[in-house]
């Protein structure tokens, strides 16, 4: 009796595990909720497929900081959608499109002219997807990172990279 019910449980568990793995590999938030925008000419799309991420192994990594390399090698795919037309409208629409049963809100920043939201898809203590939804007067951006994501590492990256975002940060500090 015992051994048999165990056997049954495993039988149930195995397909469930496979299903979970399949769902994870299936798609990112952009593919799931914003598929129609990918075809929309108002949007600019940047996609880095898992295949391309595998090809990155061939790149010369010497000039890349080790913490960046560590984060990039754990990523699986990346997709960015952005538009300059009616950004606020797209921002509002995007918030209603994301299934919040699957995604958890992580950080919300609301400024006078900029709104940023980070939502994550998490299971078993690991973040599988980080989706950034950002809007300001210049445009609306959706950015989806799929992979094994370490938020602390990612947050530290900006200190080791000189990028536009950093300048924005400094401006914020100056404004204060």
């Amino acid at each position, binding site marked *: 009796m015992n051994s048999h019910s165990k056997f049954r449980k495993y039988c149930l568990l195995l*397909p469930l595990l*496979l299903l979970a793995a399949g769902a994870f590999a299936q798609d*990112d938030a952009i593919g799931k909720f914003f*598929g129609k925008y*990918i075809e929309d000419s108002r949007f600019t799309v940047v*996609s880095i497929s898992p295949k391309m991420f595998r090809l990155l192994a061939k790149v010369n990594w010497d000039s890349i900081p080790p913490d960046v390399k560590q984060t990039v090698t754990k990523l699986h795919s990346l997709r960015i959608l952005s538009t300059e037309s009616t950004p606020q409208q797209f921002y509002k629409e995007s918030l209603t499109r994301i299934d919040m049963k699957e995604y958890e809100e992580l950080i919300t*920043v609301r400024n006078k002219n900029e709104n*940023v939201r980070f939502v994550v898809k998490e299971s078993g203590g690991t973040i599988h997807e980080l989706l950034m939804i950002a809007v300001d007067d210049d445009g609306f951006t959706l950015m989806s990172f799929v992979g094994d994501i370490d938020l602390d590492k990612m947050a530290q*990256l900006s200190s080791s990279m000189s990028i536009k975002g950093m300048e*924005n940060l400094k401006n914020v500090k100056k404004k204060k």
Partner: protein
Amino acid sequence: MEQVMIAALLEKYWLAETTVEEERQLAEYFRQPVIPAQWEPWRNVFAYFETEAQITPGEDFEARLLERIRQAEATAPGPSNSDLRAAPVRPLFRRAPWWAAAAVIILALGISRLAESPGAATTPNDSVAQSGAANAGTTTSGEATAIKDTYDDPQQALAAIRRALGTASAKMNHGRNITQKQIDRMNDGLQSAIAN
């Protein structure tokens, strides 16, 4: 003449190559009152098989068997006994639905993955050559579900990934800074409230 045939049949019989019909013939032969002396020992063998074959379980056979089992259980209700009862031999077909369900799901997953990334089976070199036909920097259109590469050069892709990571990281820190500021402000407020 008959003896030659019987000898041949016997030969076959010991090799277990006789048919049911031939065995019936042998049994019939050994029922004769007079047979050659060298075959006399076999008479009992065939007679035994004949008589044993007649035996059938009696009318009350099942009842007696069940009674015996009940008695055995009553006298020795040990764990070994209950284990025997608890582990019924389940025929394979009762498990089959589970296997079928698992198999179907695995198959479906396999097919969906194949459909999702039709180029995944090709080698990296091949795929570079293929995507080389697409223009770099422009968006490739296609099904919404499959991720189409924007860049065909890993170097460019890496640069884009770094830019994206940088932006995300900066915005994340931006949020943290604001949070920190608010916590500081709250602390200041609390402290001044306590001081007053």
